């Protein structure tokens, strides 16, 4: 640990040597006159078959006996297009191919690498402007994003520190070490950066508390617990660019005077754990981590702690308990961790995205960050957009971008010409916003005002087929299971909410349920100990606020407007549309509820039907004879003939 700046020339020199070496090694790779194939091998790529694709490339290259390199990179954020491959073939611009199956891989080797035909039908776009192939810049998905944290994701090999250094990595650390801790804290304060872990607390202020805190030693913890269902930004960042995070942590440690760092990552992220471990090892070998960083007397060592994947362990005080070997239960604050955290000593906890933004802020200055996005939450926001959108994936946009731009322009809107209904932001702590809120800018304050939350950046887009009562029920089911069980309101209150919501979706809603839900939600928010309980009612409160008519339809008319709640819907076959003699649906029914009517059409036995909806999918598109209705009594009753019909 070191309080003041060291000789800046000496640091600079050390760093320049590092960079020269890296450029040399990396330049060798990059400038080589052989084709280079880069495959996205983060968890999303692997899940889509990247391992098989990579093997197919390697095999085909060997078979054709050509000289080409096959390399791995992280995630570029276009999850809908995985496996994603970039081929740099000398004489062509770098070309990005989407959904590259082993078959396409073989074809690309023989056609493109051997015969020089880039196979236009497989191309997503070129990564550089050129006259030959349309550039990916022409897609809003590429051009409207503004990448700080994910700038290098999917472009560098996360397992090679030289690759990061060659792209300007660790330059910010070298710069920071020549400043005083106060100067760094001030730069972060100027930047206006707010914590990306959910609550949006000003990072500069937190660091200032950390810097001023007294204690025999201090710790920096990176919160990579990421427990929100459907969120995977932090995992992707760890898998795609772990060094940027380490650099951010080292700068933080220098600024607050910490000598130990811990990356708290859930054990369900094995690839992320592996990547960060490799990165730590390499960074120590290069002298940008460990003792005497870049020749100064500042030392900082980082270890990895694997959490066992309880949502509540992402809450900072529970996270600390968990590292201390105790049951992950949140504690009353104050004292805040910055003053009394791990083992009672000052501890700075920041999210992966927060810390990963730091190198850019130090490099380009706090003012630069402050200018980006909306004034009160400047910078970029990273969302994992999933659900009913054409182009799901990881998106980094300037804050202040509207939800409409994000959902419709960048992610392509809802598929199959279905109507957009709502967007759920912030996971189990967030809320559902309807169409009228699509012009809400994405920033901490606007979203909270609308009743949702930035949360950690999970976003689920829903179309007309989503029942808002059921969505609320889904999230409450999650939170009540994940409640640590410590405090009364959360442990029992969320379970009571869930029970009421379940009753409503089953058609057993009662007069007074809406009022009971509302008051209970208010009390749980007010009375719970930690953020989990305090925000758990949000999905219920927002859906009650914006979709109250759906609750009323369920309770008063026993009708589910979206036709999703099984107990409140029925399927029937429209005899006017059903084609005589067709039996496409019959085999699809798992319970043999479909029978043949007297005039050789099909009908559904309502006493047998389990409402799985298989027959809807099975009915040929020219007939679309299977209909879904709510309430169920609207389905016409058709008697099964005594004698089975032909």
């Amino acid at each position, binding site marked *: 640990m070191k309080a003041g700046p060291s000789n800046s020339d000496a640091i600079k020199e050390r760093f320049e040597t590092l960079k020269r070496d890296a450029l040399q090694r990396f330049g060798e790779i990059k400038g080589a006159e052989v084709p280079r194939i880069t495959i996205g091998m983060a968890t999303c790529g692997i899940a889509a078959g990247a391992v098989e694709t990579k093997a197919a490339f390697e095999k085909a290259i060997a078979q054709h006996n050509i000289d080409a390199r096959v390399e791995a990179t992280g995630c570029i954020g276009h999850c809908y297009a995985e496996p994603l491959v970039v081929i740099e073939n000398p004489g062509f611009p770098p070309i990005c191919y989407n959904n590259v199956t082993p078959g396409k891989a073989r074809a690309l080797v023989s056609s493109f690498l051997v015969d020089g035909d880039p196979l236009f039908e497989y191309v997503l776009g070129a990564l550089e402007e050129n006259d030959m192939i349309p550039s990916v810049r022409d897609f809003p998905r590429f051009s409207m994003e503004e990448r700080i944290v994910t700038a290098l994701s999917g472009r560098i090999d996360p397992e090679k520190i030289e690759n990061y250094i060659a792209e300007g990595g660790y330059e910010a650390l070298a710069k920071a070490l020549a400043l005083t801790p106060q100067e760094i804290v001030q730069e972060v304060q100027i930047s206006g950066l707010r914590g990306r872990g959910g609550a949006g607390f000003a990072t500069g202020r937190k660091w200032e508390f950390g810097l001023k805190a007294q204690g025999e030693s201090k710790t920096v913890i990176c919160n990579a617990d990421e427990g929100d269902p459907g969120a995977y930004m932090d995992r992707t960042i760890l898998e795609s660019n772990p060094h940027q995070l380490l650099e951010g942590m080292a700068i933080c440690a220098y600024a607050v005077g910490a000598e130990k760092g811990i990356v708290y990552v859930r054990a369900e992220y094995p690839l992320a754990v592996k990547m960060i471990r490799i990165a730590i090892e390499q960074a120590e070998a290069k002298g940008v981590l460990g003792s005497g960083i870049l020749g100064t007397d500042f030392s900082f060592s980082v270890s990895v702690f694997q959490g066992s994947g*309880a949502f509540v362990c992402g809450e900072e005080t529970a996270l600390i308990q968990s590292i201390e070997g105790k*049951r992950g*239960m949140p*504690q*009353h604050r104050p004292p805040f961790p910055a003053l009394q955290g791990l083992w009672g000593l000052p501890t700075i906890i920041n999210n992966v995205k927060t810390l990963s933004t730091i190198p850019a802020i130090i490099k380009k200055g706090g003012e630069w960050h402050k200018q980006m996005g909306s004034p009160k939450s400047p910078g970029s926001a990273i969302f994992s957009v999933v659900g009913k959108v054409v182009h799901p994936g990881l998106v980094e946009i300037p804050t202040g971008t509207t939800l409409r731009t994000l959902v419709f322009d960048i992610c392509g809107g809802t598929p199959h010409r279905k109507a957009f209904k709502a967007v759920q932001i912030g996971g189990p702590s967030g809320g559902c916003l309807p169409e009228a809120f699509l012009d809400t800018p994405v920033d901490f304050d606007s979203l909270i005002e609308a009743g949702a939350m930035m949360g950690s950046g999970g976003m689920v887009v829903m179309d007309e087929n989503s029942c808002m009562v059921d969505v609320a029920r889904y999230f409450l089911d999650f939170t*009540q*299971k*994940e*409640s*640590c*069980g*410590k*405090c*009364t*309101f959360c*442990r*029992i*209150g*969320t*379970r*009571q909410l869930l*029970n009421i919501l379940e009753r409503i979706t089953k058609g057993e809603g009662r007069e007074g349920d809406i009022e*009971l839900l509302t*008051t*209970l939600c208010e*009390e749980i928010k*007010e*009375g*719970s*100990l930690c953020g989990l309980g305090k925000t758990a009612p949000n999905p219920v409160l927002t859906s009650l606020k914006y979709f109250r008519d759906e609750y009323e339809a369920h309770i008063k008319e026993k009708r589910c407007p979206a036709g999703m709640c099984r107990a409140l819907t029925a399927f029937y076959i429209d005899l006017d549309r059903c084609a005589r003699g067709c039996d496409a649906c019959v085999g699809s029914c798992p319970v043999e509820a479909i029978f043949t009517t007297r005039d050789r059409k099909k009908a559904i036995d309502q006493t047998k039907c389990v409402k799985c909806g298989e027959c809807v999918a099975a009915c040929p598109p020219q007939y679309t004879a299977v209909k879904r209705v709510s309430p169920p009594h609207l389905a016409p009753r058709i008697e099964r003939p005594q004698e089975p019909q032909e």
Partner: protein
Amino acid sequence: MVKLTIDGKEVQADEGKSLLEVCTDNGIFIPSLCFLKEMTNPPASCRLCFVEVEGLPKPVPSCRQSPAEGMVVRTDTELVRRLQRSALQLLLSAHHVDCRNCHANKRCALQNIAKFLGVGLKPKRLEPLAMEFPQEREHPNFIYDPYKCVLCGRCIFVCRKRTGYGVLTFARRGIDTVVSWFGADGPDSPPCDRCGECVNACPVGALKSKETVQAPMEAAGA
């Protein structure tokens, strides 16, 4: 010592004490289940001991609030009472209310608090949660009833304090959270002192002692 006002009354208090204790010392009843004087870090988990402090935007658990010079405290505002009643109703909705057959009858903290807040023991507002009987779990030295337990954690605290390692712990999550123990006197389990302190600490009827304990125990200590 500091001077502060509680419910309009001026009182003197030791800054080292919690507001909850200060109130109790001055004859003001604050409903609570999980607090014990000996605790340095009260868990603030029962969510009953709320008070309002002038200048703070929201009610705070008095067990975690230190008194300060000139502080103005109200223990009986509408919001405080609403939260207390709601918490109690929630606890009761997950509680096997069977006072007549319970060994803690008339000494139970829940009965006491319900009376104070004017809440019936079987509140109509919330449906009782489903409970699967039989429910009791036997430890060699005591019997534990999860449907009576309010998860205040007092038993865990006193046990850890006495033994230094703790025989008891919380287990499971959400509504399934219970008090549990390791192995119960098996070769690998931390030994139970048979002191009976856990049973004495239980504010309700969730723990019952067996004859194996050293001294005959009081049933409920609320």
